């Protein structure tokens, strides 16, 4: 189970690290090499994004990665093959991240069955709130997989509690408004928000959106359980090449 893995791991670490890739960007082989370097550098869990043509919640960096991956032939079938390969090869938990349409077209139940079959642990689907995701939640539950829900600074206490009632594994807290890959000022205000999140759930808290350097990760120690790095690793690969991935991860831990 994802939750117990995280809690076990937290006994020996101040904070865990979750990273993100867009499957097939810039190529499947490079994606594999990035995963390998990240795992070897000590990443605790990873989001594998199945690209979608309309990634509404993603900012320019991940948006472009989605488009390029699709252009280069990153089909859902190939994404499943890739996920199966890395989950066999590496022992950390892998999650899917994608948009509702990818799951809907595949079939919510079939998608979830397939995830269980290839040993994925959960999924983050930002445009599928619980109200619209009844079939998804049912299928994930059946397969003992974690639907990861998202808290935002705009979410009321009442709704935090509502979301918690469907959450499993951990909860993903957006550090701020906006899309992925922009600056975040980690401040006092954020601490208040984190304590509201803590009150709403006993699950571990992951914090993402704007986490990109050691200072951010250090700030989150003691406040969050998992720091999520998304756009920044894509930028590193784009600017410095795949070989720089492992060193980047080691530099922020």
């Amino acid at each position: 189970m994802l939750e117990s893995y995280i809690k076990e791991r937290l006994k020996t670490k101040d904070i865990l690290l979750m990273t993100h890739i867009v499957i097939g960007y810039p190529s499947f082989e490079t994606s594999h090499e990035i995963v390998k370097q990240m795992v070897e550098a000590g990443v605790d869990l990873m989001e594998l994004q199945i690209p979608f043509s309309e990634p509404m919640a993603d900012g320019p960096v991940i948006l472009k990665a989605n488009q390029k991956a699709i252009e280069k032939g990153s089909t859902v079938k190939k994404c499943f093959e890739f996920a199966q390969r890395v989950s066999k090869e590496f022992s950390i938990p892998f999650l899917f991240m994608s948009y509702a349409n990818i799951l809907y077209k595949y079939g919510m139940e079939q998608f979830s069955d397939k995830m269980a079959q290839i040993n994925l642990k959960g999924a983050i689907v930002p445009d599928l709130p619980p109200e619209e995701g009844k079939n998804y939640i049912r299928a994930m539950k059946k397969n003992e997989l974690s639907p990861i829900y998202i808290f935002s600074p705009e979410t009321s206490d009442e709704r935090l509690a509502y979301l918690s009632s469907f959450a499993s594994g951990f909860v993903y807290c957006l550090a701020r408004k906006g899309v992925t890959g922009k600056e975040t000022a980690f401040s006092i205000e954020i601490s208040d928000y984190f304590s509201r999140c803590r009150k709403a759930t006993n699950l571990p808290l992951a914090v993402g959106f704007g986490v990109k350097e050691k200072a951010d990760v250090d700030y989150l120690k003691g406040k969050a359980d998992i720091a999520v790095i998304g756009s920044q690793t894509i930028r590193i690969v784009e600017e410095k090449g795949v070989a720089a991935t492992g060193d980047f991860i080691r530099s922020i831990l």
Partner: protein
Amino acid sequence: MKNRGYYGNHGGAFLPEILVATFDELESEFEKIKNDPFFWKEYEALMSSYSCRPTPLTFAGNLTRKFGGAKIYIKREDLNHTGAHKANNVMGQGMLVKRMGKKRVIAETGAGQHGVATATMAAKFGFDCTIYMGEVDVHRQRPNVFWMEQLGATVVPVRDGTRILKDAINEAFRDWVTNMDTTHYVLGTACGPHPFPEMVSYFQSIIGKEARQQILNVEGKLPKRVYACVGGGSNALGLFSGFFDDPVELVGVEAGGKGLNSGKHASRLCSKDASTGIAQGYKTYFLQDDDGQMKETHSISAGLDYVGVSPILSHMQDQGKARFESATDTEVVAALKLTMQTEGIIPALESSHAFAQAFKEAPSLLKEDVIIINQSGRGDKDIFTIADAVDDPKWKEFIIGKAEEYNA
């Protein structure tokens, strides 16, 4: 959100969590105005003094004689301020923005009509305004870009994806998830998450209300059929809603582009290329592949060049409550030329789709039958596209001369 906005299997509100609170507020404000009898009166007063409502219903005598069948009437949404039905929705949402106390509006635009209408509303009500427009559309609708900027709006060309309307919508959402405290997204059509499909149709229903009364006044009976082009579907729903309870056939006309078998079209309701999917916050028929990736669309008219369609129309298609057809780019240009030359009326390329379909059907109707075509907008915005389509040598000469002047 109390109501998820479902129309059969379509609709819903597939919202990223960050926008949930914003939509709750929007839904509750919309409920308030719907239940406030003074709001609609205030809205009508604004539309009659600032825009040109009620817009006329014009009898097209020459076209009627030419086709020798049904009597053809044209609902003149082109005579709205800014030249299209878009003003109906924009002014209504503007009144809502004032009530919500927000100071900035953003919008997507395809043909540019919705962008111009939004920029106008923002200027009148004193809002800051940013318009997102696909780069392809910026090129094909340059005059509208010019006017939006003159009206004080910032126009942002969208260079992601297919660089047309759907990409402009994504970009507007990205702005909104960052700035929702100060900003309202004036969605231009009856698509997107609930309450947009219902809200946009509500404001556009002024078209159908007027048209029904007007045709009863002049003809003393209801039309046999009414025709409207379908991009997102707001002008069609506006006209159709006036006749929901009547024995009137509702005909929606989609962009057939280079033909339904060419793969280059934007027909979601009458081609085999669409299937139900979820994108841009709602569930409807989308032109997509088996994985759920959205396909490229094509139409001569930027305003119909869209991958999804109103969930309300998708439901009407499922229920057989409306008939959907398509007209090709070539048919559309021919219908436009004919309308200009026989009636002295210049419909937009979007609206010309409705004309093209009505012209196919009019001859086979009886002389005592009456039909209404919705002229959703005026065509002078399309001067560059139409000039190319009719291959006018004098226009080319003028443009070349103008370019030389700028180069000198």
